[in-house]
């Protein structure tokens, strides 16, 4: 039992230190951190402890923590709830859309796509880069395999 608690605490402390030390702690960085942590702890486990239960625990913990983090970091529903909690006053849908959602969620995502090289910007127009086109092909294929007509 203590070993699981120690593993979780160690994970959280290391995560806190990385978030303080890195300039912008994004989901991508957290993802890389979880993968490296999972590999290292299991290498340690395989060499010294040889505990199958720890291996199982770490596998489920890593997957669930990624799932939870992704929700807390990216989910629109979570963003709405936290906004309402912190602002303490009610807001109309239109106002929320114009003030919060469009500039801080939608346009921000488009900007992230530009920054990460998925979209190219020329004057006011945006178009897919080579990288973006490659990903679009993959998404189209995945959508057709899983018979998804729309997403969003």
């Amino acid at each position: 039992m203590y070993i699981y608690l120690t593993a979780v605490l160690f994970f959280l402390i290391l995560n806190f230190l990385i978030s303080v030390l890195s300039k912008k702690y994004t989901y991508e960085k957290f993802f890389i951190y979880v993968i490296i942590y999972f590999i290292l702890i299991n290498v340690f486990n395989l060499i010294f402890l040889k505990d199958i239960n720890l291996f199982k625990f770490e596998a489920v913990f890593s997957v669930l923590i990624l799932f939870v983090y992704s929700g807390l970091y990216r989910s629109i529903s979570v963003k709405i709830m936290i906004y309402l909690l912190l602002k303490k006053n009610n807001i109309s849908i239109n106002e929320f859309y114009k003030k919060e959602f469009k500039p801080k969620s939608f346009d921000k995502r488009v900007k992230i796509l530009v920054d990460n090289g998925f979209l190219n910007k020329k004057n006011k127009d945006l178009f897919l880069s080579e990288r973006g086109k490659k990903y679009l092909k993959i998404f189209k294929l995945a959508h057709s395999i899983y018979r998804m007509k729309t997403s969003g």
Partner: protein
Amino acid sequence: MTFLQIILLSGIFGVIFVILHLLFLYLISFTKIIQTIFPFVLSNFICFYFSKDLEIHKFFYDALVINFAIFVIYVEFLLLLKKGFTLTIITSFKKKKKQSYNSIAKSYSNGKGSKWILLDRLLGVKKLKIIKLNRKIALSKFGYFLAVILVLSRKILSIKDFG
């Protein structure tokens, strides 16, 4: 060696699970993500049944935990394909090759528009009785409690910003 046997058993499960899910998708039109539970349970039964006479069988209960982790990853992947916000922005370039910020917002999700996604998520949380939705959006008592937990969880995981 034990680790490898568990990984092998879970690997076999993974292959059976994906094949079964696709079969259910094409033959019985299991398009809802919640319906992936059925192929998950069935593929575990298949693994259990066919490995019962083999040496590897004693690791089945250990592999079950890893199978669950595989299931969560798979569901996460499906959710990303179906609900992914950023992914849908990229797919909005299927029809129009050049778009402005406003044009992307209009053509989002096959022309439903960016406001649609907000309304869709609002209706989702309203169904769960987390918010009250009249002219204005307001948190319910349950929503308030949940929002406090979310803020605390974000603090524990050192999340400062929204993606």
